[in-house]
């Protein structure tokens, strides 16, 4: 992977699959373990689902931007939509007893469960979600450094 790669994508379910597949490929290339690759790809999928469904609401004129950046310490993934922004105070806790049997509302919870840092910045012109996974010592880059 280059230091940074980004995609501008339509607001479709294909974008969700593309985002997940890209995350899987890039996380694998960077040497993350199988469980971490699954966590990263699932977090990115959930972020993309939110961008396509809740942010852009499938609008054909609105795009989703997906960017992967490798820093010495982290894999940083940024997902932006062009929706009206979400109300972070209005997100119910999916683990609360009264919400356990709800059929939706677990996406952000899963992102926070699987990533080291999740930053969500809503605005009138869209929401930006930043997902960060720390790169560990046994990742590909460090292996090469030690050879």
């Amino acid at each position, binding site marked *: 992977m280059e230091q940074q790669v980004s995609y501008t994508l339509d607001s479709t*379910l294909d974008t*969700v699959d593309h985002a997940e597949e890209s995350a899987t490929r890039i996380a694998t290339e960077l040497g993350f373990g199988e469980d971490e690759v699954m966590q990263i790809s*699932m977090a990115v*999928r959930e972020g993309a689902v939110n961008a396509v*469904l809740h942010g852009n609401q499938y609008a054909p004129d609105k795009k989703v931007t997906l960017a992967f950046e490798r820093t010495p310490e982290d894999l940083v993934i940024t997902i932006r939509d062009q929706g009206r922004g979400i109300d972070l105070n209005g997100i119910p806790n999916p683990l609360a007893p009264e919400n356990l049997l709800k059929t939706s509302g677990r996406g952000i*919870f*899963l992102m926070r*469960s699987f990533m080291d840092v999740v930053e969500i910045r809503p605005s009138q012109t869209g929401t930006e979600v930043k997902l960060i996974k720390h790169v560990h010592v046994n990742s590909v880059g460090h292996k090469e450094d030690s050879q």
Partner: protein
Amino acid sequence: MSMKLSTRQVDGVTIVDCSGRITLGEGSVTLRDTVRDLLSKGNKKIVLNLAEVNYIDSSGIGELVSAFTTTKNQGGELKLLHLTKKVHDLLQITKLYTVFDVKDDETAAVKGFK
């Protein structure tokens, strides 16, 4: 890999063998339609065999919850069978593992219906 479902009857219980991915879109819709079709035909003892389900997202989790509550609301019972580690872990972190009736033996699952 998209989701595939097939159903079979064992001692009055419908086993739904699921394989592939239960995710937003086709996979979730297929599961929803299958469960609703079974209930409309009076099949109210349902086991979802998830042994071959290798991936599930939050929408898929929502579909499992929906299948569970829809069946219960119609006087039926739904159990989950043979969870893969990924699905097991997801149900644990979402605190749904104890909500569902989860089995790892088909015979016990079938016999467990009231």
